[in-house]
């Protein structure tokens, strides 16, 4: 397994920076435009008016403070899900298990949120937040440890662990941690565990942005980040340079799971208010699209997540105004993923030279070490 993504040294002049920004941003931007174009064609074929549809999509996501608030709320777990995938990519791991880690994080933070009474906000909320994240980290480190010590490929183990997580959380929500009454869900979290909203803007969004910055700093400015990237790019050389690769693999996966779990915590404490089966479906897979759209850069994850979040936030408005069903969003998202990965097409359209930057190559055999 190797990532072909390369690490550019910091460039100096402003012009160079701009050029390098365009080099790395042009492909995602073109990918989005191409996907939107093909989406429009599909809309036309189905008899809908794409201009109305996209206008409604925009209206539902950015037209007023509440729409923006909703977009940011949607973007919050997506940032963390995207970071989880991007971070693992940097360490040479493909974490498809964001969904499962998020579920585990969500239910554990809910349990702390409703189970520990008598704590002040200043302790309770952070405790529930971090508790969920740590649960996600522990859950992900199962896949990390299996990879590090038995060679089991994380793509398969994380997919399997996603299914297992659904079963575990359903069991808990309908069993030991079930709320009173007939509905399968945990009790609501206590007031002291809830993440407040500032007007329309959910505070969780700022937590996510702060985490993205921390992850960027961690990856590019600390020795731990250096080690993680080294393992990601060449685990053999990492071993020779004295890095304990197996341990670092577990740690990378744990941090990745921490991020996904944190996404679940924020959802629980800031949006849903409890754990309820069916409330956190599909978030994990969006992380892959976002991470690739961001070309695995932690800071670029933020705009990528806002874009996808906006599409989700606006989809109801699109249904309402343009009578277009929300599945078109899935189609567009698949196309974005396609074009952003199929760089060759985009580069051919843009007539730009490849610079070996950001291409991801993660697949290899499932079973070897």
């Amino acid at each position, binding site marked *: 397994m190797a990532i072909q993504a390369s690490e550019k040294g910091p460039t100096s002049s402003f012009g160079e920076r701009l050029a390098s920004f365009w080099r790395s941003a042009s492909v995602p931007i073109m990918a989005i435009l191409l996907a939107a174009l093909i989406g429009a064609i599909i809309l036309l074929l189905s008899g809908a008016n794409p201009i109305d549809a996209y206008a409604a999509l925009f209206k539902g996501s950015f037209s007023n403070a509440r729409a923006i608030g909703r977009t940011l709320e949607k973007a919050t777990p997506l940032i963390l899900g995207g970071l989880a995938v991007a971070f693992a990519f940097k360490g040479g791991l493909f974490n498809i298990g964001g969904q499962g880690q998020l579920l585990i994080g969500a239910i554990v933070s809910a349990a702390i949120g409703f189970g520990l009474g008598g704590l002040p906000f200043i302790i309770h909320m952070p405790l529930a937040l971090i508790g969920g994240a740590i649960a996600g980290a522990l859950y992900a480190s199962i896949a990390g440890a299996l990879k590090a010590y038995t060679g089991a490929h994380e793509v398969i183990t994380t997919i399997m662990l996603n299914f297992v997580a659904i079963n575990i959380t359903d069991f808990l929500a309908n069993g030991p941690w079930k709320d009173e009454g007939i509905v399968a869900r945990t009790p609501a979290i206590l007031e002291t565990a809830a993440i407040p909203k500032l007007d329309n803007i959910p505070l969780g969004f700022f937590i996510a942005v702060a985490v993205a910055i921390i992850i960027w700093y961690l990856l590019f400015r600390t020795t731990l980040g250096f080690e993680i990237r080294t393992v990601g790019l060449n685990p053999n050389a990492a071993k020779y340079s004295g890095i304990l690769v197996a341990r670092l693999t577990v740690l990378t996966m744990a941090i990745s799971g921490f991020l996904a779990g944190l996404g679940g915590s924020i959802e629980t404490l800031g949006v849903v208010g409890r754990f309820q*089966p*069916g409330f956190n479906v599909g978030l994990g897979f969006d992380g892959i699209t976002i991470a690739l759209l961001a070309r695995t850069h932690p800071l670029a994850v933020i705009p990528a997540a806002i874009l996808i979040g906006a599409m989700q936030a606006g989809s109801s408005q699109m249904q309402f105004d343009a009578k277009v069903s929300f599945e078109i969003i899935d189609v567009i998202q698949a196309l974005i993923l396609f074009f952003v990965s199929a760089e060759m097409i985009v580069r051919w359209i843009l007539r730009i030279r490849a610079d070996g930057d950001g291409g991801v190559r993660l697949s290899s055999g499932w079973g070897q070490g």
Partner: protein
Amino acid sequence: AQDCASADVLCVGLVTDVGEIDDKSFNQSAWEGVQMAANELGAQVEYIETQDAKDYLTNIALFADNGYDIIVTVGFALGEATLEAAAQYPEIKFIGVDQFQGAAVENVAGLIFPEDKSGFLAGALAGMLTQTGTIAAVLGTDLVPPVVAFKEGYEAGARYVNYDVELISTYHPGGLDVAFTDPEWGASTARQAIDLGADVVFGAGGKTGNGALIEVAGTEGLYCIGVDSDQWETVPEAHPCLVSSAMKLITPGVFDTIQSIVDGTFAGGNVVGAVGLAPFHDFDGSVPQDIKDRLEQIRVLLETDAISTGYNPGG
């Protein structure tokens, strides 16, 4: 379209639970009730399909902000969002399908159905129809209360008429995201039940249950029973076996509640909708009269609470 904000235009909006409007199940039945209001009351109607459970409130607000007068929300999962919206928009009336109201709120009608009674009737029918003495139920997930109610009622009803009946029932093993959309599992499971000797199969779990019905239809001489609406209309593939359906009459329930709002007789709190068995359709001739009589007798007893289904979700 007309302007919903104007006072003389009646606008009714519907927000689905996660899933589609055409789910051949509760979303669809509720929507048909809203459409009735369009036809009979001249209402302007619209729906939004919810994609993400966290969007309930957002989707309700889309209607509210566009001046809708009545908003129907479908499914117990929307209960909290509905109450929250009701507080936010006191001038709008809400109809919450499957949403039990603990304390009455003036502008919310909780349209609830005693599914256990419906299931009880289906179970009684199955218990009397069976030749082999084994009847089955193929169910969605126990994460959803109405499914549990149907099951418990079904089993109690079967025992009530036929104490020795062999009951085999099973829930889908997956989570909420798959339990109602797995017709293949429903079909295989129904087949497994048939191989075990079951000759009446109750399919109660959205498309999973429909899969079971269609599977049963493939073998001659077996009966199947649908759920929620009269599935004779929604699953024509099941006609060869579909003797009846355990209905909760959502469509008339929704329409009647809308009507009561228009009439001004609406008060808030729980509205108990009707339940019952669907017509026998093609089986009308083959179901013996004594069974029909017995069912009618049980229906009356249930209605008057003279017999209990034994389903007690509270405790």
